[in-house]
């Protein structure tokens, strides 16, 4: 597997591509196959705890939550659900850097970048404002 972690933006885009914005009449097997297809296409199955939680938090019903969990089962949470003090400190440092655009920084983006740097992983994201 390549040393890449998926950002939430990628998972959401892929999820919508596979099941639509409101995946009705879909099975857990469908959701599992969607997750496997992304892993296979990218030769990567890594996500981070903040991404897992952010994705789960997008579910709008119990049924959709079950599908999201089945989708996410195909990925490995490579930080072992352990966010360190140094990750929070680095995330805060990133959050304090005001870009020229003045756009607000997002907590999850700052945290993902901090953890990815610690674990020496590259981040596959669609977010053009991912904190630099």
């Amino acid at each position: 597997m390549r040393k890449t972690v998926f950002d939430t933006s990628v998972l959401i885009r892929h999820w919508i591509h596979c099941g639509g914005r409101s995946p009705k009449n879909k099975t857990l097997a469908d959701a599992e196959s969607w997750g496997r297809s992304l892993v296979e296409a990218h030769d990567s199955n890594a996500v981070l705890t903040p991404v897992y939680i952010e994705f789960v938090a997008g579910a709008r019903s119990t049924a959709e939550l079950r599908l999201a969990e089945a989708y996410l089962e195909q990925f490995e949470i490579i930080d072992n659900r352990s966010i360190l003090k140094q990750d929070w400190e680095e995330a805060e440092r990133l959050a304090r850097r005001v870009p020229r655009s003045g756009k607000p920084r997002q907590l999850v983006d700052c945290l993902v970048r901090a953890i990815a740097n610690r674990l020496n992983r590259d981040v596959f994201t669609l977010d053009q404002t991912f904190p630099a």
Partner: protein
Amino acid sequence: MPRITFFRQARVDGGIRTGINVDGDTVEHFESGPDELDPVLAWFVDLRCDGDDLPLNAEEARQWFLEHRTIITDGFLGLSKKLTLGMDPDIQPVQWEISDSPSGVRMKTVCCSARTAPARKMGMIAQEMAEHWEEYLGQLYAAEVP
């Protein structure tokens, strides 16, 4: 079925990873970029091979890739021609089979970029894969498991 993958991927800070993965075991070489550390992935290009008679470790795979350099570099040049105008940024990688793969082996080139600027240059990146194939493999001589 055994699988070996040669990968090269770049970050927006200019850092580049080059590596070989043999059934889950990876060796890689990392060149830091000139810019401040930024882990966002700009693009990746893979050569993925499936087959029963593939090498079983990274060094054997590196030698195998050298032995089949002509087929492989032709494959990357073919990819380059298909992507002369670049590609659209997307999360779905583009995949092309290499038609004259060695007997019993299925080879394909795979590339992806979710960023507009590198996606537009993907043809040039594929051409560089062909032109520098042996150099990139040389970076992996005695490379360490990360």
